[in-house]
């Protein structure tokens, strides 16, 4: 089967090259049939990559260790769920996932535009085929996921336990969908530039793809944060890690792009800016993929130094150079059709929001690459930590939230002061009320930036609430519908507008959670013996008893040994029990003893969290194996050559000993307020994006009708 997989990739590479060549030839000579053939070759490519991916998945599910990749990244005792995800935990597998998603996305967009954009689409096909060819070339020449082993091992190395988390099932594919999705608008932008058709057609055709990509990327980032919160055992959700930053950067620039294309659609302005933004987004998406794999920056995500760093850099350099050259060559065609009329208008505020978003991206980029920059300037590798990022990004985030409130209520072109007053009075009153309440009843004043953020969030929610209320009541007056029906109809008929409001509300809620949980968390690290207690954030926590479990941890990650603890938590009259665990995965290091390899391998925390809308109680445990070491060493020598069953009994005895005579264990407890709102806000954003992006048959009908009536009008006036 590995041969078939390799063949799929090789044929795929040839198909991609053909698709690019045929569409370019068709576009240059005006021979439509060649462009059509190029487009169909992309469908073919999708079939080939999907087949290759299916073959690889099947090999993982079968635990076929003759595949080098399976032997490295899976094992028979890895649970099936994680066998499926293990494919993209490896570099080669994730390249294949990238190519597969790219081919699928390309096919979808080319199918949808097969009857429109006849000039732009062939060039877009060529760009997409070029990107696909690059990824296929990487696999065919350097990182073939179908490499086989002459002597397959009896057992594989297993999936990295850190990656055994449900969020890991969808986090990488979502990020990749986001990265890949942005290649679609990029390709069409290039097509539009090449053909000098720089109107808003390419934007209309790919807006939805950009929105889908943006949503997936955002949801992927958030799932990564959730993984960090519940799996990494340190209790935070964001660490300004280079790879986190790498995924956030294209998302920020993509956000700017989604806003500024509206200005181009409505007013024909900002064309150079839009073309630059989408090129930037695509390059940053490539950079994100590159950073995960290159290991040039110290990161928790550097899952292995890469062998394809140079190739990636060359490709990124090529994309940057070609994009810049193309935009410069087309500057005369990118002139604005209108000018900025007033600084108090929606387009001016969109521009401002764009500048802040791009500024935010530049700040993050500078910090991420600072080790490289400082080494180039001073000769010493230096790095900036999370405090630096927090200090610089907080003010920008505050401005952004304020703009998210003001922007949507401003009219295009220019705004009169009286209308401005009319839309801003109520939201400002809400923000003011929030300020007074926060100052009177909470200690929010301890952190000025958080206090400001709370008020701005209240402002944004006030704006969104006011818009929904006004629209709904206007509709009720006109149609006499009931409230829920009027609201649903209103949203359904103006999906982009109200979807946008929802997204803004979601982001505001998300940042509310970030501001509250980062400024007001209580954290304690303690060492306790059973029966001892400690206090954190008003909670009284007692270590009731130790736990030990063999073969079958609660989270189903396939850990042979789990040690844990049961703790009682009390606050006032409330009482609950938490059971954090620590899972131990056997090492395959032959230098370790037969028994100690079960304790000296990978270990990671299964934290227990009491989720709540007001605050989370987060608890992790690190059992101390020190006092057991002597017994483990003794067992190593005594039972080195015993059968597996005997060894299992020995381990059970050790676990029993841990339970009966427990040494003190280290605990980390965190009481962090309103973390749940980060995930809730994220869900609202996804919902809003769905509303904004869902195709509306009515809107299409309206568009077609207006086109027809315009044509009819022209013909009538001619007659």
């Amino acid at each position, binding site marked *: 089967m590995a041969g078939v997989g390799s063949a799929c990739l090789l044929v795929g590479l040839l198909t991609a090259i053909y698709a690019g060549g045929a569409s370019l030839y068709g576009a240059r000579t005006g021979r439509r049939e060649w462009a059509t053939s190029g487009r169909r070759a992309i469908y073919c490519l999708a079939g080939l990559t999907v087949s290759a991916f299916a073959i690889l998945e099947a090999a993982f599910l079968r635990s076929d260790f003759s595949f080098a990749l399976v032997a*490295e*990244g899976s094992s028979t005792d890895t649970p099936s769920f994680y066998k499926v995800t293990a494919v993209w*935990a490896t*570099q080669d597998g994730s390249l294949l996932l990238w190519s597969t998603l790219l081919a699928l996305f390309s096919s979808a967009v080319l199918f949808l535009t097969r009857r429109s954009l006849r000039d732009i689409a062939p060039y877009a096909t060529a760009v997409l085929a070029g990107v696909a060819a690059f990824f296929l070339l990487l696999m065919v020449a350097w990182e073939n996921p179908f490499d086989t082993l002459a002597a397959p091992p009896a057992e594989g*190395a297993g999936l*990295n336990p*850190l990656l055994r988390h449900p969020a890991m099932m969808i986090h990488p594919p979502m990020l990749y969908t986001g990265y890949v999705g942005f290649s679609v608008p990029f390709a069409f932008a290039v097509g539009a530039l090449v053909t000098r058709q720089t109107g808003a057609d390419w934007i209309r055709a790919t807006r939805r793809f950009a929105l889908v990509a943006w949503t997936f990327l955002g949801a992927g980032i958030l799932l990564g944060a959730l993984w960090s919160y519940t799996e*990494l*055992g*340190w209790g935070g959700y964001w660490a300004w890690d280079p790879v986190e930053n790498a995924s956030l950067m294209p998302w920020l620039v993509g956000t700017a792009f989604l806003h500024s294309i509206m200005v181009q659609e409505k007013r024909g302005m900002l064309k150079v800016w839009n073309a630059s933004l989408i090129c930037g987004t695509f390059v940053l998406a490539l950079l994100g993929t590159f950073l995960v794999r290159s290991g040039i920056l*110290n*990161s*928790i*995500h*550097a*899952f*292995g*130094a890469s*062998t394809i760093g140079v190739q990636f850099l060359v490709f990124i350099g090529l994309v940057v150079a070609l994009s810049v050259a193309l935009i410069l060559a087309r500057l005369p065609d990118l002139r604005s059709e209108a*000018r900025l009329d007033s*600084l108090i208008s929606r387009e001016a505020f969109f521009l401002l929001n764009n*500048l802040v978003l791009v*500024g935010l991206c*530049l*700040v993050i980029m*500078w*910090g991420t690459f*600072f*080790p490289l920059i*400082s080494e180039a300037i001073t000769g*010493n*590798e*230096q*790095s*900036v*930590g999370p*405090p*630096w990022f927090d*200090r*610089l990004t907080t003010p920008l985030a505050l401005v952004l939230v304020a703009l998210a409130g003001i922007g949507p209520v401003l009219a295009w072109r220019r705004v009169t002061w009286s209308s401005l007053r009319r839309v801003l009075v109520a939201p400002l009153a809400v923000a003011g009320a929030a300020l007074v309440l926060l100052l009177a009843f909470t200690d929010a004043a301890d952190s000025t930036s958080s206090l400001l953020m709370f008020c701005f969030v209240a402002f944004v929610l006030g704006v969104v609430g006011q818009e929904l209320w006004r629209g709904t009541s206007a509709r009720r007056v006109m149609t006499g519908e009931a409230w829920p029906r009027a609201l649903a109809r209103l949203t359904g008929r103006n999906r982009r507008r109200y979807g946008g409001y929802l997204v803004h509300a979601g982001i505001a809620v998300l940042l509310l959670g970030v501001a509250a949980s980062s400024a007001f968390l209580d954290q304690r*690290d303690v*060492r306790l013996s059973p029966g001892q207690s400690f206090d954190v954030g008003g909670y009284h926590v007692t270590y009731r008893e130790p736990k030990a479990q063999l073969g079958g941890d609660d989270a189903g990650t396939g850990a042979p040994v789990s040690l844990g603890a049961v703790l009682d938590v009390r606050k006032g009259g409330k009482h609950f029990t938490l059971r954090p665990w620590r899972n131990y995965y056997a*090492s395959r290091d032959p230098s370790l003893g037969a028994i100690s390899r079960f304790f*000296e391998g*990978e*270990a*990671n*925390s299964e934290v227990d969290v009491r989720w709540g809308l007001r605050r989370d109680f987060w608890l992790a445990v*690190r059992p*101390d194996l*020190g006092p057991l070491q002597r017994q483990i060493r003794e067992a190593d020598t005594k039972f080195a050559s015993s059968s597996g069953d005997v060894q299992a009994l020995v381990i059970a005895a050790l676990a029993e000993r841990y339970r009966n005579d427990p040494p003190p264990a*280290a605990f*980390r407890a965190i009481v962090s307020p309103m973390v749940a709102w980060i995930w809730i806000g994220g869900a609202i954003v996804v919902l809003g994006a769905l509303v904004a992006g869902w195709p509306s048959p009515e809107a299409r009908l309206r568009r077609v009708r207006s086109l027809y009536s315009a044509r009819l009008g022209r013909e009538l006036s001619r007659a």
Partner: protein
Amino acid sequence: MDPARKRKIRLAVALGAAVCLAAALVYTSFSAATEASKPSQIAPGRSYELTGKVVPGSIRHEGDDLRFRVRDRDGTASVPVAYTGVVPDPFRDGREVIVSGELKHGTFVAERDSLVTKCPSKFTKDEERS
């Protein structure tokens, strides 16, 4: 004011803001940065971000303290480290770590919770090939 002049002023304001941001970026990053150093490079009297590998067999628990030695990635020079706080999951003998702190009386006294572990290399290809 005529529109052309107005645009020029806007451009100047925007450029000014950009220059300010850039200056803030450069200034704050260089003043806040810590230098990553190998055990063979550090001296007492200033703070460092120490990088290197955990010397196998050197990890000891002393009450709440964690003691271990870090050695150069590509050498033999090593320094003892005294650390308190949370220990990342992948911390092990031979792992590559980053920890911030200061050299005092021959021991690298680490800041609380500053220990970062690079990810397990067991699962990477290079390790297997080497």
